């Protein structure tokens, strides 16, 4: 079986959406007797912003965990850049160029923002433990290069002022930004965002939306995100997958999804104006 083929096209705002990057075919994920994901197929194209939406318990986070290799589906295949993914552990998936943020922030509270971000560079380090311990040769060169990348991301996300602040002392909105920084510093090809805007106020949401668009635009990073705020999803994403009770009930551009009757019934509700 091969992946779905697409012709590349250029969006209205000048971004190029390429061929399929990742494809999920007939994924079914069960936890004992509970079926979290039921026979779902969809794909993510190079350079696009792809949203997964659905009511609580629809299986969105499970889907993201399948993509990130944390869960292994009982049925179905995951294809990444033309190759079927075999049994893989999460760090191997990370090495493929997939990075993520978490719904419940997973940072090291006692460490500074900079140190937290530096941990995201782990996959880009190849110097030995001994080299690093004595800070010699390659270890030093690597650290300098990694710090430079980290600073580039700090500048990009405008968090210079909190560079040395322990993460535990930061407000929620900034922690989310630091988590994004840690994912970005790994230079991912595919970035997975699990509810990047949950619990944020309007201004923080606007900032985060801006950053997501900028990441996609500046670094050409493909982004898959789960989000509850419909306004945000419809504004940001190129294509949307809608899930309900583990099933896919809709897939397409925001406009297509918005006018899909099944989606309206399950999730969006009826507009009364």
């Amino acid at each position, binding site marked *: 079986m091969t992946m779905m083929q697409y012709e590349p096209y250029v969006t209205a705002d000048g971004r190029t959406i390429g061929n399929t990057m990742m494809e999920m075919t007939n994924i079914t994920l069960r936890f004992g007797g509970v079926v979290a994901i039921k026979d779902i197929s969809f794909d993510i194209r190079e350079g696009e912003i792809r949203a997964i939406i659905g009511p609580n318990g629809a299986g969105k986070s499970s889907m993201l965990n399948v993509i990130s290799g944390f869960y292994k589906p009982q049925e179905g295949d995951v294809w990444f850049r033309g190759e079927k993914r075999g049994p893989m552990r999460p760090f191997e998936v990370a090495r493929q160029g997939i990075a993520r943020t978490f719904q419940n922030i997973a940072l090291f509270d006692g460490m500074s923002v900079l140190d937290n971000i530096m941990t995201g560079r782990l996959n880009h380090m190849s110097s030995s433990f001994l080299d690093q311990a004595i800070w010699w040769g390659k270890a030093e060169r690597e650290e300098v290069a990694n710090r430079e990348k980290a600073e580039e991301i700090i500048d990009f996300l405008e968090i*210079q*002022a909190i560079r040395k602040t322990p993460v535990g002392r930061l407000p929620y909105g900034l922690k989310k930004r630091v988590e994004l920084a840690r994912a970005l510093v790994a230079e991912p090809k595919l970035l997975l965002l699990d509810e990047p805007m949950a619990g944020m106020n309007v201004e923080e949401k606007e900032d985060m939306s801006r950053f997501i668009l900028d990441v996609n*635009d500046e670094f050409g990073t493909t982004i898959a995100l789960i989000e509850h705020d419909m306004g945000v999803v419809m504004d940001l994403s190129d294509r949307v997958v809608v899930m309900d009770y583990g099933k896919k009930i809709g897939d397409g551009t925001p406009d297509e999804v918005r006018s899909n009757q099944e989606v309206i019934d399950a999730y969006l509700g009826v507009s009364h104006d």
Partner: protein
Amino acid sequence: MKGGQNLAEMKAVSGVPESVPALLARNVAQFGSKPAYREKEFGIWQTWTWAEAAEEIQAIAYGYLALGVAKGDHVAIVGRNRPAMYWSMVAAMKVGAVPVPMYQDAVAEEMTYALEHSGARFVVCGDQEQVDKVIEVQGTVHQIEHIIYQDPRGLRKYDHTKLHALADIQAEGRAAHERFEKELAEREASLLYDDTCVMLYTSGTTGKSKGVVLSNRNVIETARASSEFDHLRPSDETLAYLPMAWVGDFIFSVGQAYWTGFCTNCPESPDTMMTDLREIGPTYFFAPPRMFETTLTTVMIRMEDAGSLKRKMFHKYMEHAKKVGPALLDGKPVSLGDKLKYWIGDKLVYGPLKNTLGFSRVRVGYTAGEAIGPEIFEFYRSLGINLKQLYGQTEATVFITQQPDGEVRADTVGVPSPGVEIRIGDSGEIYYRSPGTFVEYYKNPESTADTKDPEGWVATGDAGFIEESSGHLRIIDRAKDVGKMADGRLFAPKYVENKLKFYPNILEAVVFGNGRDMCTAFINIDLAAVGNWAERNNIAYASYQELAGHPQVMDTIQAHVEEVNKSIATDPMLSGCQVHRFLILHKELDADDGEMTRTRKVRRRIVEEKFDDLINALYSGKAEQYTETEVTYEDGRKGKITATLEIRDAAVVEAAGQAQVAAE
């Protein structure tokens, strides 16, 4: 910074270069390898020496020529303080164009006026935010031809036919340097001392903003005089963080920096200003009073949270500092014991505190713009920070008066700056004439003529007087608020009101007396402060009105008024402004009732009309007055409050000047 000491001994002056680009050339020749600019980027301070900065500036200048910038063109600059933004300004001067720095936080509509009025064909922007605004302005202002930006982020996909990255402009300039070498040299050589150096738009709080044209002579003469006044050195360091469109930043970061050859440091981002300040430890520093106030409040709050040992130590030594710190700074005699105690305090408290604030190395510090509270001013001075005041405006190329070392006080703004003449008009308005006096308001001869008379005297719009004993200028009020009393003595309401409002119990005061034979006042108490006092003293009250009318509150306020009278009496010029009678208003002055502006400034005329009966009572000698006032509730309903207000006489002090008037 090894070379710092040697550099300090270098002579800053050699001949008088007649333009900022000429100063740049001199700096390259004289201290080419010394840091000229620093900016924190990617967490590291990046440095450019004078020679390196000159090369960057030259590349931009060549790029401008390639783009077609003509002599006399206006090049608008809008962005936060970054070396490249300053370079863009100097490069514009090099090609004979006029840089016009603009406020980066202005919205597109506000920018439209200045961009249109200046006729700028080229705009240099810091980032996407500014580019977006200029593109919006281009919808109505069609003369803008090219936009240049520094930070490419988010701009990659924009239409680049008329939009250029500064780095590209520089690359183009470098590539085309042979083609333009002669042209640039010619243009630079043709710059005259009286050519326009820069155009700065006034903030325009009163009416349309005006483009103030400053010549090379204005900028260089002022920079020279003020640098010499404060003995600035090539080894000095400043932090450039105030808006580039403000004349002060232009004079500090371009005028004085180029004259003296000191280093201008740019913060990493607006949010990191305090950290960057600490890292750089500037030796020459300017900040508005608000910043010193906020910093002091932060220090005090953090001290309250500190452990008891630290807190006790802080308070004990700060008390000592207040006693001898300013004297030490002014070089006045201090006993050996006090000196020793101050030295210990410096090791334990003052030194570490200054280090935390980034003020360890400040040799010359200035504040200006509005009155600074005396206790704030004294706090910094007692720590050994040489904080001084200056008085100036855009039209004067900043400096009108400034305080010399050793003659620093909270209530004056210093002596006339070198080369500045000052005259007090009949109405009390301050006039000045100086080498820094602006050339004209751009395309506005009427306003120019209104402000500057044929002999070159400029009206400041402020009223003040020269203190005879010290020769220092003291600012009283805005000139239009200053009046005369019936017997011809000066009436300066805001001066008195500010003194009254200095007491925490007094929230607002309105002083009357224009054309009358004595001054009277309305007082608003501060409900928070007085309420707190009432609670501690078991005084029950149900409303603002009840508390305001309480006899003990009246006593307290009377004591405050009398203290203010005593202090005013020491000023021969203003002794007539002592408050003879006052009352405490039964309601707080409120913007909803039209008595104040939304920015909490009293609308004097409306208050006068509305409380006409009370003013009459103040002047008729009555002991109390019944009044009815209409009020607007927050939901828009109207109601009426009635009250019988007690009117008190306050003791006034017979001043020497007053006695004379009476005798005549």
